[in-house]
Each structure stands twice: as C-alpha cells, then as structure tokens.
C-alpha cells in the first residue's frame, strides 16, 4: 500500500515547511499550554472533574494496561512481526494473573503468572509466524479466538469451585500496595478545592500522579524507559530492530533473525500479559470475563499513534486513558468541556500552520474545524453517555487521520522471512 500512502501525501509546500522537532522544552511548554487550556475550559464550564486528582489518577490507571499492550506491540513490530493477537495475550494475562495471585496468595505471583501467560500466547504467535511463516494478522486473529476460549474454559474449571468465584469471574484477589509522596497530599487537596484558575488544576494533576499510585503502575511506567534503553541504546536492541527493518541484511551480518524475532514476540506477549494482569489484579480486583474490552486493539492504535516509539506510545496511552477516565467522572459534562479544549487546540494548530509553516489552506481547514467544534460546544449542554463511551476510539480515528502520513513503521513489518531467502 506504499503507493497509496505516497500518492495521498499533500503536495510539497512552495517553501520547505519547517520540520517540527519535539525537544524537552517544547514538550514541557506543550504540556503547560494544554493545562492552561484545560483550566480555561474548567473555569468556563464548571466541569471541575476534567483536571481533578481523581480523574488524573484514574487516567493513569487506565493508561497502564493500554500502555503495556502498546509496549508489547512495539517489541514485536520492531522485530518485524505484526501482533494483532495482543488482545488474546492480554486475556490470557487477566486469567493467569488472577489465578497466580489466588493460588500463591500474593499479588506479585499473579504479576509473574500474568506475564508468563501472555508469553505463552506470544510463543504460539512466534511459532506460527516465524517458524511457519504464516501471515501475521491471521495468526493474531486465531490467537484472539483461542485466548478467549481457553480462559473461559479454564475459569469454568478452576474458579467455579473457589469460594466466591463463578463461571465467569474469580474470587477477590489480594491487592497490591499503593505508594505516594508523603506530606503533600493534604496541601494539594486544599489548593485544589479553591478552584483557582491554573493553581487548582496544577494541584489536581500533581495529586493525581503522586498519591495512591499502585506499585504495579510504577513498574509499568519504568518499563517504558527500559524498553527505550534496551531497544535503542544497546547492541542487542540494534540487532532486534534490524530484523524489523531488513532481516536479509541482518542475516548477512551474522544476526540470527529467528532468535531475535522469537525473543521479541515472547517479550511482546509477556508485556501484553502484564497489561491483562494489571486489569484483573489492580484495576478491578477480580478476573471477569470480557474484562479487556478491546484494550489490546487500543494499545495497538496507541503504538501506531506513537509512531512505533516508546515516548510516543506512552503519550498515546495517556490520551486514551484520560478520555476513558473522563467518561467515568461526570462523563457528559466532562466530555462536553473537552470539546472546548479541542476547539482551542485546533485554533492554536491553525495559527501554528499559518504563522510558522505558511500553509494558508491547511490553516483555513483547521480553523473551520475549530469553529465547528466550538459551535457544537455552544449549542449543546452535555454529551450523551453513549457517545462518551467511544471518545477514545473517535480520538484515535481523528488523530490518525491527521497524523498518519508522518508515521513510519518498521520497513519489514509483517513481511514473512525465511532464512536464506536472499540469493
């Protein structure tokens, strides 16, 4: 489909458009600007939940499983194996996590079991795609079916006999401890209660990310820089990525492509399994059938959204986590307030396109969209609850349609490879 993508790219601007590089300062400024916009929206609409500590905390919690699935996708796709079976591996993780925690009486055993369960799914995917060279998407679809079937089968066998368990759910799982930075929680909370412009928002965000954070969440967050370090700063990572870019070249340099692909898909499954284990152990405290709710797919979208990079996928996961959290907290009002933020963002984007890039027509289109979103915001009071349920999905679709041409996936992603195929 390269030809389609290339043909669809907009014609080159007369003067070369300035390339946007995201540095530390730009990122910090961007976050601050976003906070200001949200603060404005909060003051204007009175939707206090859009920056409350509760929402931010929930957003982080909801972002973790998506982020872990996305990291899983990153590992395997960087080695050239498309992994649409993340959802199935996640489902295995939810069941194994609950089972491990209940059997050994400690949640950390569940964490390990969840990762192993997911890795088992990854192993199957690796055997099918790497050894047998079968189409990656088909294998993924089959693994999604299998993951669902196996866990439903097993929970009927195992959880039905447990006290408080049933055919479709497990008993309560022992919980993992929470940590927080001591001594600042109360101060931040009273600041937040003042509802002062910007100050209260900053306090809410800080309290959301520093208080009552699950240890599992910390572990998950640490996995992002760790993945970056391993994949981009070590010889091992370089070889692994070379298998996703040009396996034939890697082979000619003596890299055992099969070995790296296997390892990458195993890690991928383990990460997705961890995401599933997070859902059952931390997020809900029990295993329930259908718990993943398509988060594996959202994780895949977050990874594409993040341009196959750890930092980007973390940002994407946070965005999905946030929109997901909003619908739980005064969904209609909060998502309605978010419309104002979107309108402001689009307006700012239009100005950026006009002033910094000199793209008049693109700026006009963005501007029209901004006005349209603002109009919707003005004529409605709230967003129907059924609509808030797909906010993350709609966001994905919009962001991808705006940004997909700047994304670049690993060159040999999804291409079957057989040893010695280069003659």
């Amino acid at each position, binding site marked *: *489909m390269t030809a389609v993508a290339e043909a669809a790219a907009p014609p080159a601007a007369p003067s070369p458009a300035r390339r946007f590089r995201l540095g530390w300062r730009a990122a910090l400024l961007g976050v601050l600007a976003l906070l200001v916009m949200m603060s404005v929206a909060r003051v204007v609409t009175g939707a206090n939940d859009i920056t409350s500590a509760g929402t931010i905390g929930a957003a982080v919690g909801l972002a973790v499983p998506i982020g872990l699935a996305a990291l899983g996708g990153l590992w395997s796709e960087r080695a050239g194996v498309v992994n649409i079976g993340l959802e199935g591996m996640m489902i295995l993780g939810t069941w194994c996590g609950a089972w491990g925690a209940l059997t050994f009486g400690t949640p950390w055993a569940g964490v390990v079991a969840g990762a192993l369960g997911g890795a088992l799914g990854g192993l199957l995917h690796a055997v099918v795609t790497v050894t*047998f*060279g*079968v189409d990656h998407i088909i294998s993924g679809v089959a693994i999604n*079916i299998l993951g669902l079937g196996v866990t439903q*089968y097993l929970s009927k066998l195992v959880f039905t006999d447990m006290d408080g368990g049933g055919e479709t759910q497990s008993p309560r799982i022992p919980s993992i401890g929470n940590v927080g930075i001591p001594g600042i929680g109360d101060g931040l909370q009273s600041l937040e209660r003042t509802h002062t412009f910007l100050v209260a928002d900053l306090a809410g965000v800080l309290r959301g990310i520093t208080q009552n954070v699950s240890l599992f969440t910390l572990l998950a967050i640490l996995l992002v820089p760790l993945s970056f370090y391993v994949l981009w700063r070590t010889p091992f990572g370089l070889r692994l990525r070379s298998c996703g870019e040009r396996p034939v070249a890697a082979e000619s340099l003596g890299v055992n492509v099969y070995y790296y692909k296997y390892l990458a898909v195993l890690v991928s499954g383990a990460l997705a399994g961890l995401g599933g284990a997070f859902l059952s152990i931390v997020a809900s405290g029990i295993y329930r059938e259908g718990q993943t709710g398509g988060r594996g797919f959202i994780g895949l979208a977050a990874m594409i959204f993040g341009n196959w990079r750890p930092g980007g996928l973390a940002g994407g996961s946070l965005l999905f986590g946030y929109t997901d959290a909003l619908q739980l907290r005064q969904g209609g009002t909060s998502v309605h307030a978010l419309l104002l933020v979107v309108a402001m963002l689009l307006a700012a984007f239009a100005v950026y396109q006009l002033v910094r890039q000199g793209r008049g027509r693109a700026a006009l289109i963005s501007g029209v969209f901004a006005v349209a979103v603002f109009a919707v915001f003005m004529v409605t009071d709230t967003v129907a609850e059924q609509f808030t349920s*797909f906010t993350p999905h709609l966001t994905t*679709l919009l962001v*991808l349609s705006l940004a997909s041409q700047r994304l670049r996936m690993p060159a040999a992603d999804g291409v079957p490879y057989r040893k010695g195929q280069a003659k």
Partner: protein
Amino acid sequence: MSSSFTDRLLGRVRLGGLLALAAPVLAIVFAALVTSIILVLTGNPPLHTLLLLVDYGSQPRTIVNIVNLATTYYISALAVAIGFRMNLFNIGVDGQYRLAALLAAAVGGALVLPPVLHVGVTVLVAVAVGGLWASIAGLLKVTRGVSEVISTIMLNAIATGFGAWLLTTDRLAVAVSGSNNIGTKPIPASGQFPGFAMIPGTQAKVFGFIVVAAVLGIAYHVLFNWTRFGFNLRATGASESAAVASGVNVKRMVLLTMIISGAVAGLVGMPQLLGASYSYSLDFPTGLGFTGIAIALLGRNNPAGIAVGALLWSYLDNSSDILDLEGIPKETVIIMQGTIVLSVIIAYELVHRYRMSAEQRRVSRQLSAGTGAPAEGAVA
C-alpha cells in the same frame, strides 16, 4: 520464492490433486488431537464428547439451527473475503452489520408497503448503511493513508456507541412486551422474509434468506472470475505496482472494494431480522463479523470453501449447547475453532513447502538424468 504467502493463502496458487485435500484433512486431524489432549487433561473422555456433539448435531431441530446460523456466517465471511481479495482487512464487518440491521429494522418497522417491496426497501437500507459505514474506513485509507485494520476496529466501537444511542426509547426503540428488553418496532408481515420447513422431522423453518446467500455466493464467483472489475481487483491485490502500470486506479479500487464489502456486510443481520426476530433489540446477535473473518480464512476466500467453513463453524456452535448439560465446558468448542483456524493455515503452508521441494527434486532429477550436466540455477 515464486509465490507470496498471500497468494497461496488466498488460493491464487492452486494445489493439485490429493495435496489439495491433504491440508484440510491434516488440519482437522491436528485440531481434533489438540482438543482431545485438552479434554483428557481436564478429565473428560474425548470420544464420548465427540459422540455427544455428533448425536446432538444430527437432530432435525439442531440441523435447522445449524443451517440458519451458517447462512448468517456465510454472508459475513463473503463480506470479509471481498476485502481479502484485495489485501484489505475489513475487521469492521461487525460494526457495519449491526448498524445496518438496526437502521433497516427501524425503517422496516415504520413503513407500510406491499409485501415484496417492503422487504426490498428494508434490505436496501441495510445495504446502503453497511456500505456507507465501510466507506468511512475506505475514504480514510485513500485520502489520509490510515490503515483499515485500525480504523475499522475503532469504527466498530463507534458503531456500538452510536447504536446504543439510537436504540433508546427516545429515538428508535419501543419496549418489547413481556420483558424489560427494548427493540425497534416489529416489522409487519408484509416485510418478513418467509422461510420453509425443508428438514424432515421438524416444523422449524429454514431462513428464506438462504436463497439470497446462495445468489450472493454465485455473484461473488462471477464478479471475481468473469468481470473486468474482478480482474482489476485481483490484480491490485496480487501486485499493486503491476496494476498501476496497467492503468488501474488503485485508490478508486480500494474505496469501491471497501464499499462493496460493507454493503454485503449490511446483509449479515438480515436472515435473523427478516426471518426470526423481526425487530432489532438489545439481544440481537453480536460478533458475527469476527466469526466471518475466521470462516473466510478457513474457506480460503472461495465461495464453496466458505460454505463448508460456515457449516462446520455453525455445527460446532450449535451442537456445543449439549456439552454444558453434560458437565463439559462448552468453551471446548471455541478452543477447537481457534485451533482449526491456526492449523488450517499452517497445514496449507506445509503442504505448499512440501510440494515446492518435491517439484525441485523432480526437476533436478530429470535434468541430471537427461543431460548429465549440473542442474544448478535451473532449479532456483
């Protein structure tokens, strides 16, 4: 390699004679083996389980259910297969058919029309909605380069939310009498698709829509094998650059294929809607689109193969009801289905590799016997 994996998968490379049969047989034997191992491990006798399935599945009433569900699966798999033929992965069949069935049910319930016309209008609405919903993914792909895999998954979730919003008593739904379910206004007799009791031994009726499904299968075959459009479509799927060179407008083909796939997907809910429930309510079957993907793979995008796959899948789904009564988790069947999909594709790959190497051996033997010269190069 002389042919790509997709070529083999989509049946563009034909396996000759007995080998064509070897793959599915191998796969089913392997799937049976895996399922037996799981059953033995969990303390259930495999043979007894299998006999239960066969016994329950051959009762007349179950046969009717099997045929009816297979009709639905068949249409769903055809919709997926249309996309596959062009390397388009339409995961969105699920959202497309649910939205289409909901809106068609609403229109069908609201209209007063003479019999045949009533059905026609309802079906037309379904086709239009399915095609329109799929066209979003198609447009995003050709104008913005968004992968249809991701966009259709997202559109499924959006269709779910949008459908839930429409199916409230403020809008399209009315309370279903005698339950706390809600659904669209029932379609009157003039808009129903009559079924026929063709299985001896039961009064239960087979969906009349099975005729439409069969026509669709024939149309699919004709479209892909006898029309210029079908040729262009297959050409684009096989080699995009070659298709572009011969003057095919790839973007237009992508959009059209997506719309046709969605239009067929719009029909997936029709057998159930026009033949049994006559209303789209909260308990309308979901997930048929995903089943369609698996069946399209099983049938290798061939209309006859898909029919066999749909019957097999439906047989397993329907006969599994007996297992729960016997204390065996009926999810055994889901495991069996997943294993069948995996082993079918692996089996085709293995058989193909075997055939390739056998061919190479044969050629090199002939060459060395004929000339005595080294046969290198000629083989590759």
